[in-house]
Structures are given as C-alpha cells and as structure tokens.
C-alpha cells in the first residue's frame, strides 16, 4: 500500500472542475484508491467517486491523504499528488 499527503492550493478546493479532474485521474489507475480530508478529520471515500470526493468538503489549504493499493499504487499516488501540486495545470 502506498500513501501520501498533499495540501490543496486551488482557490475552489476540490470542487467543480478540479474535483472532476481529480476523479478522472484516479479512475485512470487500476489500484483501489481512497482519499480523506485530513484537515477536517473526515471519513475515507473512494477517489474514483465524484460524489464521495465532493462530500469531503475540501477547501483551499486543506490537507488530504491518499492511499492506493494495487499493481500501479506507487504511480497512482505520485501522479495524483503531482496533479494537485500543479494546481490542475
């Protein structure tokens, strides 16, 4: 299992387009990927679920934690964190 933490720098947090991009990125991996909002100490949800990700209520400057389990787990965590660090560029 691979895990990683990252701070969301996007103005709208993980809402709207950023949330959709985040989910699309997660869905491109075979691993089971889960995410939770560290700042809010919330529940864990599937990173491949837009409904799950939206209900995390991730706002700007919140920290999120990602875990992945599966054949491409390392790549998954690395790329998802890179996506957020690049502010979805």
């Amino acid at each position: 299992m691979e895990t990683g933490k990252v701070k969301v720098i996007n103005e709208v947090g993980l809402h709207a387009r950023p949330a959709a991009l985040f989910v699309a990125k997660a869905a491109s991996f075979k691993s089971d990927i889960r995410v939770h909002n560290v700042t809010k100490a919330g529940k864990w949800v599937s990173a491949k679920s837009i409904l799950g990700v939206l209900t995390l209520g991730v706002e700007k400057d919140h920290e999120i934690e990602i875990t992945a389990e599966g054949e491409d787990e390392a790549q998954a965590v690395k790329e998802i964190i890179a996506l957020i660090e690049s502010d979805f560029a």
Partner: protein
Amino acid sequence: MKIIKGIPASGGIAAGPAYIFKPTEIGVKRETIQNPAAELSRLESARNVAREQLKALKLKTENEASADEAAIFDAHAMFLDDPSLLELVADTVNAEKVNVEAAWADGIENFARQMEMMGDEYLSARAADIRDVGKRVLRILSGQSETDLSGLNAPSVILAQDLTPSDTARLNKDFVLGFATAEGGPTSHTAILAKALGLPAVVGCGPALMEIKSGSEMLIHGGKGELIADPDEKTKQLYQKLTGEATRVAGVELEAAAEHAVTRDGRQVEIVANVGSPSDAVSALKYGAEGIGLLRTEFLYLERTTAPTEEEQLAAYNAVLDVMEKRPVVVRTLDVGGDKQLDYLDLGKEANPFLGWRAIRMCLDKPDFFKIQLRALLRASPNHDLRIMFPMIATLEEVRRSKALLAEARKEVLAAGHPVADNIQVGIMVEIPAAAQMADFFAREVDFFSIGTNDLTQYTMAAERTSEKMAYLADPCHPAVIRQIKRVIEEGHKQGIWVGVCGEMAGDPEAAPILLGLGLDEFSMAAPGIPHLKAILREWSYADAQKLAEHVLNLENGTAVREYVRGFTHA
C-alpha cells in the same frame, strides 16, 4: 394583485400568462424481492437509457444555449456512473432484498443530503443535480415519460419550484418569456440559463410562488427581483409602458427582418447567421438571415466514439445547404483541441488550451483526418454557394498548406467521379493578432476574411475569455481591438476581398455601428438578434458611422467607446 419579492437573477421585463411547471411525481414503492441480480440488471439497463438521454440533452443545450450550459450534463453523467453510489445501491439490494427503485432512491437521497449539509452554495446546487439524475433513472425504471410540456403552447412566464437543466433543456424557448422559481439562488441553474437566453428571471421567491394559478396574468421584473400576479390597472399600465414599447418594436423589427439592412444613405451590408447545427439553419431564415456567416462543424465530431465519415459529413452539409439554397454558407473547418476533447483523437491535455494545439494547427498535423472533412465539403459544393474557412490561422504557411490539402482533396473527389463546384471561396478566420497585423499579406492569398472578435479580443488582451475575473478585459470595443479590425478591413478591401465579423461583436447594438463605419461588409451573428440589428443599422447613415468609427479609434478604453456610441447624435 399579489406582489412577490425574490432574488434578481437576470435582468429584463416581461408580461404574460403563468405556466406552472410541475415535474411528474414519482412514487417509489418499497418491495421485497427474491432475485437481487435481476434487480441490479434492471438498474443497469435504465442507466444505459439515462446516459443516452443525457448525451442528447447536452447536444441540444449546446445548440440552443452554450457549451458552458451544456457541461452540466457531463456532471450528471458522472453522478449516474458514480462507483460509490452504485456500490451503496448494490449493497442495499443484496443485504435488504429490496427492489432497485427503493435502493436507488435511498442512495440518491443519501448523497444529496450530504451535499446539502455541507453548507456550501455550490454543493447545495449539486444536490439538486443529483436528485435530477435520480429522478431520471426512476422515471425510466417506472416507464413514465418526462413532464408533459404540451400545455406550453404560447409565450408564458415559467413558474416552478425549481428548474433543473433537464427541465429547461426540454422547454421550447420560443414560448419562454421569463423564469421565476420558489427555490434557488443567484448562481442557480435557472439564473445562468436565463442570462444566456437574455430572459428575465427571479429566483428564491419562496412558497407563495407556487400558489399562483396557471394562466394568471404575470409581470416579471428581473432587475428588481419582482413578480406580480394579477396586477391592477395602474401597475399594468406602468409595466406596459416599460414592456409594450419593447415588444411592439420587436414585432415591427421581425416583420422587417427579411428586408436588407440598408443605411439611410444607401449602403447595404450583409446580415448572416452563426449556426451550430442543421436545425439552426431553419430558424436563422425565420429571423431574416441572408445566409450563414459561420457554420461551426464541431457538432459533427463531439459526443461520439469514432470520427464522422465523409458520407455522414456530406449528409449534414447537404442538410444545411438545402435549407439555404443559393445563399452563401461559410463553413468553418474543425475547431477543437485543448478544451474540447475527442475520444477518437489523442489531443493531449495542455496547460493553456487556448494557446495550444487546436483547430488548423491540429488538422494540418493530421492531413488524412482533415481531408475527410475537406472532401465532404467539396462534394457538397455543387449548385450552392459553399465557402470554406480555416480557423486559428497565424501564418501564411498555414494558409498555403491548408489550400494545398484542399487542392489534393479536390483531385481525390474528382478522381472518385464526384462533381465539385468551380470557384469555391476560401477564406480565413482572423482571430490571432499576428494575422491581423499581416492582413496585407493574407489578403493576397484568400477570398475573404472573417474576423473572430471573441478570440481576437482574448488574444489581444491576453485574457482567457471564459474567466469571470477578467471579464473587464473581454470588451471587443477596446480601441486595441477596433484598430486591428480597421486594419484588416482596409487591407482586405485593398485586395478587393470582402470582410466580415463572426464574433458576438457583430450583433452587439453598440459595437455594430462602429463596424459599419469601418466599412465592414458582412455581419454574422446569433440569429435571434438579426431583426434588431437590421433595424439599428437602418437608422444610421454610413457617413455618420464613419465619423463615429474615426472618433472612437482615438478613445482610451472600451467604456469610453461605448459611452460615445450611446451619446452619438446623428447629423
């Protein structure tokens, strides 16, 4: 008389009968079932139907409103296929042995409530979207059709508890005078749509709204956020003064729409339509379009998993050309890339799609793909005035290579035994400042220029036009843009070619007189605005417009330009 105060969502005033929009109630019965697998397979079939409906709604909305507006259906499709939702529903069906309708309704409500409880305006609005998707699937499962809208057969003010994108996509926009909803805030779907359609809207009116009876006389003042049912004489007269004049004028203008736009001193300009699909072409004629100045061809390529064939494209072009008969039809070759993705072409993701590999840049890199469109266009050309326009041209080499590919395509079509019209006009969109600056060179290579003022403004101001924060930089009336337009028109005319504008500026009542004065030959715009624009241009003389244009070139910003146009007194 009953006055209801709500939140102003979109400006404008309208008067007309109330049409109460009440969605079909779907009762969900909870039943015990024996075979969970069969239940889940029913859900899967229903979701497949829903997915197709959403695709169709997206396309319809893109054509009637805007791509932004249509994007909401992408979100709906994501909700429909959401793995967490599906897992929850499957668990409920398997563990509780309940029918899939009940499990699905529970699952939808579970997520919708979670969104509402976040205390965030954006997420609350998504709760409505989730329920909209939920109802769509329940309707399909129960075999019920969507809300019956057949009662909406005259122009009306639409009253509703709330309106979802699915609801509004199906409303006949010709019969909508304005919107009022009991729920919703200034950023609700209804508000956004009403603005896109230029209709008044009041939202957040509260429960009193739904007590109004169908057919009641309504007055709606979008800017004030006010709605009046069964107004007294005095109020009616006040509103009549406000709307009557506007309505009367619109009627007179529509009657005269088929006539040409000729200035008081006899200069005639061509008024044509921007069109996004074959069905748009029919309504364009109704509004007095003298042809099509921009036929966007993206409708052929989006929302599908394989590229459109030459035959499919030919059929679509023929459909438009048959409607337009001998009138000019300017077809813009494919303009996608960056922000618009196609499943069957790897366009890649770019940090700055508006500055990226798109339109002609992409097409020239994929000549075999591009030539399919060019061959279809050439085959559609006989007996019509079809013109071909290349988008996003920055350099002369791009024009030359595009024309070379067109020549190759012509040879291939002729070799296959199909006729091709002679003298097909070939032009470019002038939307990149480089092309505007080099207009003297380009004018020698092409038969016409069509200035894409939306993009020309965004590239001149280096401000992405979809960003709200930079909306103040998006005014095509800024002299920085107008000076380029002047140059393009002058250089075009020196070489004897015609010059048009196919951005929103062409239909902007404050900007159009400037374009007239700069000597523009062709105004291409959204069809519903044509009758009004023709009326405005008929009030001007070319001589006055020239004076106006000359003056505004030396003002310091767009605001000053617009003020000057508004205050201009005719000689």
